[in-house]
């Protein structure tokens, strides 16, 4: 028997919106410690890793480890049927091939049940190596989304270079080139608005705009985003889900042509 209850279905809605761009379906691994999801996008360029801790739920029960393969578009459809302040309960029997989403409205006596068929997905699981990153940048998530959106108009890929002075996002295309530089902020009054750079070594890497744009769909989850970079290692874009866990995106860099 698996049961997880969350007073705000809005969080789940936001998580779904953040991953359904990249993934069509995904396996939710449920265990005593919480719900985990790890999946690559179709082109195997990026990886989505979601962790929802059991402590963050209002009620959590998982008698036996359970993997639920779900179609994210269908799941998103179901969650669209709920209001943001509805309480959601996810239920599944140990041996069932369906999952039930129950929404309870706060103000009125209204309970909606949605049962969804599970899928038997055979997805590859990747071992994410522990990496000491050369650069860790914390910045407002809205700012990051804005930069990526703006620059993707000019070119297919964005070069992110991190130095002591700050972070530079640049691109070039048919129209011309574009550069956005942001420096580390000195006042720490508002943590949500500050830019902090923890740098061991300067790093410059190139990434495809398309994926970065998909990552920024997670912006509504949290006001701060963390970018971790090292030379010749995938970029990590991390969004903390308050009290519940985190959503991490890994993106393989584009390599210099000279190497081949």
């Amino acid at each position, binding site marked *: 028997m698996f049961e997880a209850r969350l007073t705000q279905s809005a969080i789940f809605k936001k998580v779904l919106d953040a991953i359904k761009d990249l993934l069509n379906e995904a396996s939710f691994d449920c265990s005593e410690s919480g719900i985990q999801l790890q999946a690559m996008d179709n082109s195997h360029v990026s990886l989505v890793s979601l962790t929802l801790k059991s402590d963050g739920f209002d009620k959590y029960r998982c008698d036996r480890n359970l993997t639920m393969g779900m179609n994210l578009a269908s799941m998103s459809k179901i969650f669209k049927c709920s209001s943001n302040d509805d309480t959601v309960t996810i239920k599944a029997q140990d041996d069932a091939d369906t999952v039930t989403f129950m929404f309870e409205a706060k103000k009125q006596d209204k309970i909606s049940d949605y049962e969804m068929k599970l899928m038997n997905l055979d997805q*590859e699981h*990747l071992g994410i190596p522990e990496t000491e990153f050369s650069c860790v940048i914390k910045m407002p998530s809205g700012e990051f989304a804005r930069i990526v959106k703006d620059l993707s108009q000019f070119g297919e890929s964005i070069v992110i270079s991190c130095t002591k002075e700050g972070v530079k996002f640049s691109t070039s295309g048919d129209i011309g080139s574009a550069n956005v530089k942001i420096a580390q902020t000195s006042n720490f009054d508002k943590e949500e608005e500050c830019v902090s750079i923890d740098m061991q070594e300067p790093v410059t890497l190139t990434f495809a705009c398309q994926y970065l744009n998909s990552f920024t769909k997670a912006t509504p989850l949290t006001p701060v985003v963390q970018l971790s970079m090292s030379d010749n290692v995938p970029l990590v874009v991390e969004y903390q889900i308050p009290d519940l866990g985190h959503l991490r995106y*890994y993106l393989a860099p584009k390599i210099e042509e000279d190497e081949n």
Partner: protein
Amino acid sequence: MSTSLYCNPLGHFLSKTGPQFKPETRKVKRSLFGPIDHVSSQKFLEEELERIRTTQSEKWNFDFQHEVPLSQRGGFQWKSVAPIKIKPRKRPINDFEGQDLYAIPDDVIRPTPIRFMQEKEEVTSSQKSHQNSKPQRLITDFMPVKKRSSSDCSKKIASIERPSKLPRLSELSS
């Protein structure tokens, strides 16, 4: 009197047709020309075939048995048309006559279209893309593919319930 006398034997005759006619419908002798000498007829056939072969070979200046021209100075110039088969096709035993008249699908030589125009386009487009962007690496280049350890138990349960979806060979072997 006479009629009655005539009628009676006829009626008697007709009533006994069944058993009486049987010995008269004995099989006709098939051997019209005496016993067959198989050896001599075979010899005759071979001689006849050999005669046809040699006369035709002389006529066309071609050894039909070995499929080669007899001499270079002949009036005909022979060229092989079909591709040379390395392995002769094994035919079924109950080979029916005239099978050679029908084309075997593999023997049909179809013209192959050459799309040189498209190839040209592809080359130019790939050159363009190479000029504009760097090649994209895959996430699997950096992270090793592992087995889903946490889901193994649940997968086994699923496979028991639904026999149509059997566990993979790789899972079974390890």
